């Protein structure tokens, strides 16, 4: 799980163009939206695409992302049980 979390942080930084950030700057349990990284609805779409591209997980309903993207940890947990690649 820890390895997946580190990998995921790097992928989030890349996908969302956080140029000056490193994985160490992201708190695994901090909220991704609102506070924390302060992501918005465009980022949510980018994260849905990231799940599809990197882990073969297809979310048909953008609203489903809300619980999954609560924090890096919730995202990693979801990936570990639903990944198809």
């Amino acid at each position: 799980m820890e390895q997946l979390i580190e990998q995921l942080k790097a992928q989030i930084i890349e996908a969302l163009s956080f140029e000056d950030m490193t994985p160490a700057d992201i708190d695994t349990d901090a909220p991704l939206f609102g506070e924390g990284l302060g992501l918005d609805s465009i980022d949510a779409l980018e994260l849905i695409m990231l799940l599809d591209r990197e882990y073969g997980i297809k979310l048909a309903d953008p609203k489903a992302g809300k619980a999954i993207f609560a924090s890096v940890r919730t995202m990693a947990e979801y990936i570990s049980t639903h990944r198809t690649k």
Partner: protein
Amino acid sequence: MRIAITGIGMVSAIGMNSAETLQSLLNEQSGIGSMRVLGSVHRELPVGEVPLTDAELKAKAGIDAHEPVPRTSLLGILAAREALAMANTTCDAFISGTTVGGMDLTEQHWAEYEQGQASENIRLHEAGESTNVIARHLAPFTFHLSPFTFTATPSTACSSALNAIMLGANLLRTGQAKAALVGGAESLSKFHLNGFNTLMILDHAPCRPFDADRNGLNLGEGAGFLVLEPEEEALQRGAPVLAYIGGYANTCDAFHQTASSESGEGAYLAMSKALEMAGLQPADIDYINAHGTATPNNDLSESAALLRLFGDKLPAVSSTKAFTGHTTSASGGLEAAICVLAMQHAFVPANLHWHHSAEGLITPVTHTQKRTLTHVLCNAFGFGGNESSLVLSAHGIDLSESPLAPLPEPRLNDQIVNEQMVNAAEARRMTPQTRRLVAAVRQLMVSTGVTHPDAIICATQWGCMLQSMRFLQDMLASDEQQLKPTPFIQSTHNTIASLIAILTGNHGYNATYSQGKQSLECALKDVQTQMSLGLIRSALVLEFDEQVDAWDKVLSLIGDSTQDIATARMYRINE
């Protein structure tokens, strides 16, 4: 001056002309179905396609099969010819909105460009050039010279055509045009079908505007044009007047690049100001042709704005997008033309596929209703929160006139741009050139003290080319799979003017023109015209283009290139 509409022309999935469109509307016959012409892999997505191939459209328009013509222009030529023939007059101004322009040709021929094959199609990528092609095919003889003295292409995404109508009306009111052909044209493209798909707002079933269970929009294509002329001219030559321009307004929601605010602030302001110009009260409106795309966000936001303005006295409302699909940049022209048809034939078009109401949503008219329509409101909202509303009236409404006043001297951002004026968080999604322009605008706002100009107008030849090329190349390389939404969101020409409005909380007039090397001229014409009419007192004019290697490689085949341009000018009428 009373502005008369003496001709309308339209092409869409429900008809190749006004008569066919009228029949489809009265018969409640939707044009949305399976993809037949657009060569996308996403066959699962229903579309409102004009059921003719490019070759068939050329044959119908009498255009040589070998002449390169973007599909946007083909649709535009047919609709514009109908409007001109109906009005039985000539126009000196032609204003046609589009965003797709010749993107269809670019995506079809990209592989050839990459192999170094020069082609006439390359030049046609430009939005303004697709308008010029329409203009050349409207010449009364076969000289292929544009019959117009002024041509402009507003490119504000899905509100483009309504903004074209507004500029046309303003040109008449300042005596700069005798008659104006105004509206918009847009074909389907793989580019924007995939783009909307990345936003997860395309319904896999026929769209259901304002329904509780609506699940997104269907893209459509088409064109719609009006011929505008002073009532006096129309009466003098005995031309029948179909309807009048009552009032109009464009505002910016200043909230988000693709989503509308919950309260529908921009939409509310646009509708209120359009009514104000027309001297009407909300209770005077008999029918509203809503933007009504059927996305969860638009319909809720538009409903909030409608309920705020009309309260419990909401007139008949319908979205005709369940007939035509969302024809994006053409929608304002097509739907204004549909409103004129509805007024002429005394009916309210149906909002097809509506079944369930929900808290916060308006309830539309679900079947065709026979009704005399005196005043009608037509909405078109675009990316970047670009919100436009038009009032059409059965009887003449006096709009103020003014001679053209000289443009005040601008203040330029002549200092070296301090890029520190854009912080890292803000800059995250900006291209380097966007960042420079935003910094330049901030400096100019400080040096002039004008932080909330009445208008923000951008001139751009190629638009936001860096993100457009990213999305296009990813789309072609991946066979339309797993695309990133951000490049698409930032690919529309009006990204820059919208971004400035969002960053500065500016709800004022917001426009973008893409007319080749004349783009700035068009933007300044808009400023001067609106200042002369007293509609605005200050305007921020932006010039934007970016040097992009991928597109430069293509342009080099025809001896052209892109360049970095980021300038800001402030125009202000002194007290």
